[in-house]
């Protein structure tokens, strides 16, 4: 049996009058096998991407190794002075992200519209 792969789609959305927001839309599984998909996609972002949204609404399975990759992405973003906001996590994974403390470094929102609006609030 093969692990279900991670799909990442890159999007750019406009919210209000601000600069465009880069969205990383994850789908499938996020596990230890997702390093290239998660960190590779982040590293390929244009240097001027300052506002980043992480979309977990189509993620089917996420484990602690996958969460560690999200933390690594946040470490890299922090070094580049980028702001990350997160949406689409199930209530269970909102709880898990809160338990491990990730919410200190990224805010969680229920949907894209709310997350997007938070950049301009």
């Amino acid at each position: 049996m093969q692990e279900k792969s991670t799909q990442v789609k890159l999007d750019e959305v406009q919210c209000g009058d601000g600069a465009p927001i880069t969205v990383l839309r994850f789908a499938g599984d996020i596990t230890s096998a997702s390093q290239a998909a998660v960190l590779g996609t982040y590293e390929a972002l244009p240097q001027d991407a300052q506002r980043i949204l992480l979309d977990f609404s189509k993620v089917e399975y996420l484990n602690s190794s996958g969460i560690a990759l999200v933390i690594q992405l946040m470490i890299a973003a922090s070094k580049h002075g980028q702001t990350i906001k997160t949406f689409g996590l199930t209530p269970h994974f909102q709880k898990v992200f809160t338990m491990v403390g990730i919410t200190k470094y990224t805010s969680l929102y229920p949907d894209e519209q709310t997350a997007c609006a938070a950049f301009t609030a």
Partner: protein
Amino acid sequence: MTEKNPGIIELHIPSRLGYEKIAMNTAASTARIMGFSDERVEDLKTAVAEACINAMEHGNKFDESLSVGIILSMSDDSLEVKVVDTGAGTQGHGTAPDIDRKMHEEEKARGMGMFLIQALVDEAEWVSSPPTGSYARMVIRLHPASESLERR
């Protein structure tokens, strides 16, 4: 025919990442049949998946010739899950991750599995019993102690 305990479900999975989902989904189906809420089922799924991954990685060193055993024991008010490997047992603790240290790269980003297991189930322990194998034991209760007190 050998008589078996009808309250016990046992399965074995190879030490290969991805197979933990078989254990996770079996535990979830069992918990749903027993009447656990969706929230508790999600807690159990994460705990069982993390315990299986630990058993594959640290117990069986990803040796695919070694299997991870999962024993689900149902009782009237609880579900116990044992995840058995062939290793010497874990030395770690389920201490809470320090996100500041992780963000400052003073501690590895990984290493949250045991913490999550302990935080998500009502009871968790790791038993070392070489050479027969070691296991993680988790229990979720239909009516945890805090709920029982609230109902009084």
